[in-house]
Every structure is written in C-alpha cells, then in structure tokens.
C-alpha cells in the first residue's frame, strides 16, 4: 500500500516544479504524522482494553449475568483528571491505559497542525506558516479555555 503510492510519488516528483515538490513534501509529512498518531493510539487503546478483560474475567463471557450496563451507566468509574489517571496507571488498570490511548488520539490533530507549522516554515512559505500558526494558537487556547490545562 505504502510502497506503491511512494513509487507513484517519486515518479510524479520528477515532472513537478520545485514548488509542487515542496507542497508534496508537506503533504507526505502530514500524512505520516496522522498515520503514526492513529497507529500508536489504537495500539495503546487495544492494549488497555485487553488489560481490562484480563483483570476482570467476569467481563469476558459471551453470555452471563454480568451486564455491560454497569460499566456504561452514569455511575461508572473511570479517570477524567490527570491526577486520577496517574492513580489508575500506577495501579496498572486497563481503563487508565485506554484513556492514555484516547488522549493520544485527541492530540494527533494538534500534532498535525504543529508539524504543518514547522513544514511550512522549513519550506519558507510565509503565508501558510502564519495561517497554521494561528490555528495552532487557537487550538492550544481552546484547551486553556476549556479548563483542561489550567
């Protein structure tokens, strides 16, 4: 999958002007960030989910008296602050690992914007550097506004 399109890219690059080649490099860098981001986060989420089932054998039956509803009701217990998350991870709980994976997934688009700022800066594309820098600032600002980081 990757090799075939990479070959196509190299062939295409020869015909491209230098401007097009620059655009292409940024595209490939961003595609790579997204791919690595989702691969790592889904691996961590899957590992955490597996750990949950290992720690709680009663979850793992295909039929039985234990209903999923107890885990999805409003009184279900799971970490939603960084302090709680730390405690869950220290105890080696699968829920904590899943949450880490989900946070990595949430951070992937942010990282994607950060990488595009650096790429455009590197390609000396001033207008797009400013555009992406503004988006990054707004994105980080929204985390502060939401009270996540403050």
């Amino acid at each position: 999958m990757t090799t075939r399109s990479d070959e196509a890219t190299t062939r295409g690059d020869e015909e491209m002007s230098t401007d097009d080649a620059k655009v292409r490099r940024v595209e490939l860098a961003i595609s790579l960030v997204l791919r690595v981001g989702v691969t790592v986060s889904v691996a961590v989420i899957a590992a955490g989910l597996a750990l949950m089932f290992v720690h709680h054998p009663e979850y793992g039956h295909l039929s039985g008296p234990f209903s999923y509803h107890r885990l999805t009701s409003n009184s279900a217990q799971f970490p939603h602050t960084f302090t709680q998350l730390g405690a869950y991870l220290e105890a080696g709980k699968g829920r904590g690992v899943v949450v880490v994976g989900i946070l990595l997934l949430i951070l992937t688009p942010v990282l994607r914007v950060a990488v595009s700022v650096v790429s455009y800066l590197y390609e000396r594309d001033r207008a797009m550097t400013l555009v992406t820098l503004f988006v990054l600032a707004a994105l980080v600002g929204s985390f502060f506004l939401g009270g996540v980081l403050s």
Partner: protein
Amino acid sequence: MVLRRATRDQGGSPTGAGPGGSSGGSRSGEEHHLSTQTVVGGLSGARGTNKYESTYNRGVTPLGFVLTLVVISALAGVLGSLVGLGGGIVVVPVLTLLYHVDIRLAIGASIVSVIATSSGAAAAYVRDRMANLRTGMFLEIGTTVGAISGAFLTTVLPVRALFVVFSAVLGYSAFATFRKRHAAAALTTSDDRIANALGLHGSYYDQAEGREIPYKVVGTRPGLALMYVAGLVSALLGIGSGALKVPAMDLTMHLPMKVSSATSNFMIGVTAAASAGVYFARGQIDPIIAAPVAIGVLGGSLVGSRLLGRVENATIRWIFVAVLAVICIEMLQRGVTG
C-alpha cells in the same frame, strides 16, 4: 419512558448479578414491575418489560458489548469517511437508542469517533491528494475561532432553539446539494484574491473517471464565514461540524464533491480536538465505550478512504444528501423534545 427507567434501576443494582443474590434481586425487580404495570395499565405492558429485560439487560455482557460496538463503529467509520462527517451521526443514535447509554457519554464517544475517522481517513486523503491541504488549513482559521466563540456563548444562547435553527440550515443544505447534482464540472478560472495568493487551487486523480482533474477555488471569504459558523455550532451543540463544512466547500467554494468530503474529513479532527479536552475533563469519555468506538471507526475509515476515489462524485452527493436529511430530522427532534 417508564419502562426504560424501570429496567435501568434493576440493571444498576448489584444484587441481580451474583448467583446467590439473583433471586432477591429479581424479586425486587418484579415488584418494581408490578408498580410499573399499574402505571402503564395493562398486562401486555408488563410482559413486554420482562422480555425486554432478559434479552437486552441480562444477555449482553461487556465482551458482547465491545464486539458488537466495534462492528457497528466500523460501518460508521466507512460512512463517515466517505461523506466527510465523521462517525458521530451513527454512533450517537446507536449508543442511545440501541444500548441505552446516557446522551452525555454518547456525545463523548462521538467526539472520539470524529477524531478517529478524521485522522484515519485524512492520512490516506492527504497522501493521495484527495484532500486540499492548503484550503483545509486556511478554513481551519474559521472553525477554531468559531469553536472558541462557542465556548463563551454556551451559557448565553438557547440550545433547543439552536437545534431547530441548525435543523433548518441542514434541510436547506441538503436541498441545495441535491439541486446542484447536474452541475458537476470543476472550475477552470478563479479571480478570488485570497485563493490566488495562498495557492489554494489544486487537482486530484479521479479513479472513477480515470483522469487527473484540476480545479480552482472561489468564494474564500463566504467560505471562511461559514466555517466560523460550523465551528460555533459544533462547540455549542456538541455535534460534528462536517454537515456544514461539506456544503460550504461544495456550494460556496466550488470544490469537487469528493474533494469537499476529503477536505472536510481532514478538518473535522481539529475542530473536534478543540472541544475533546473539555469532554474529557467533564468525565464524558468512558473508556469502555470510547475504546471499541475508536478501534472500529479507525478500521472503517481506512476502508472508506480507499473507496472514495473509486466512487463517482454523484454517488457521494446522493449519500451525503440522504445522511444530511436524517441528521436534519434528528436535530429537529432534539430541538422540539429537548
């Protein structure tokens, strides 16, 4: 409504689970149903409750929940990545109506599904040049600023009225997108100053037509304004903003339908990430719901992103109009019933 509450009461009580405590638990449950029966008024009502409970509440274990949710989420991922809306449109109704999960937790899982669809599909769309990267990044100015304004306005604006307004907007978008179905040719010239300065024009290889299709971008200013509204709405109502992004790019900026969908896919992740932190802090992201949703949707989005190139623009338009009509009704219902 009464039936559902009775079921949840019993499902939540720990006595119903163990082999020893099961008799006591079910007896108290039966008593509860007797009272429910008198309220509902009819023997059939009570029988329905018991049947419902045994198949739904007792039968599904956490493993069964996770496995079925992965499969449904995969389908949501295919659909979401094809039309550029993310998986939320399928995930929220499935979680609330089929699994009876609280709407708060369903919305938390939906925001995770939007980010997963977006990142999973955009990796392929950007690589295959299906998404217009520069246009997407330019428009993200509008969506992020809109999302921040929305965070300030949540307490001021009436949410239910907004649902009704949004539903009307979506209804109109569906109609306009449907009406444009015959004018499919891409633009060859553009006098849009911003688009020319930033080099937003592009081209993509259309597998269905078997040729490279160059296109020009117009209407950057109204497009940016609509993106602001899209960001605002998604922050206020907690719904994916792709439903507004795709028509804005398709109708106002004249991007080809597939490019609009792919670029929307690329953008929705950033919009969703801007509010995802808040949902995490509020405790709306339950790992046992979000994990299967994220895994399934990611798998589905990989399939969807391979399909988009091969499907005709007109087909994508039809699917999009149909999905938009469904969301329009869903929003109207949420606005009217609260």
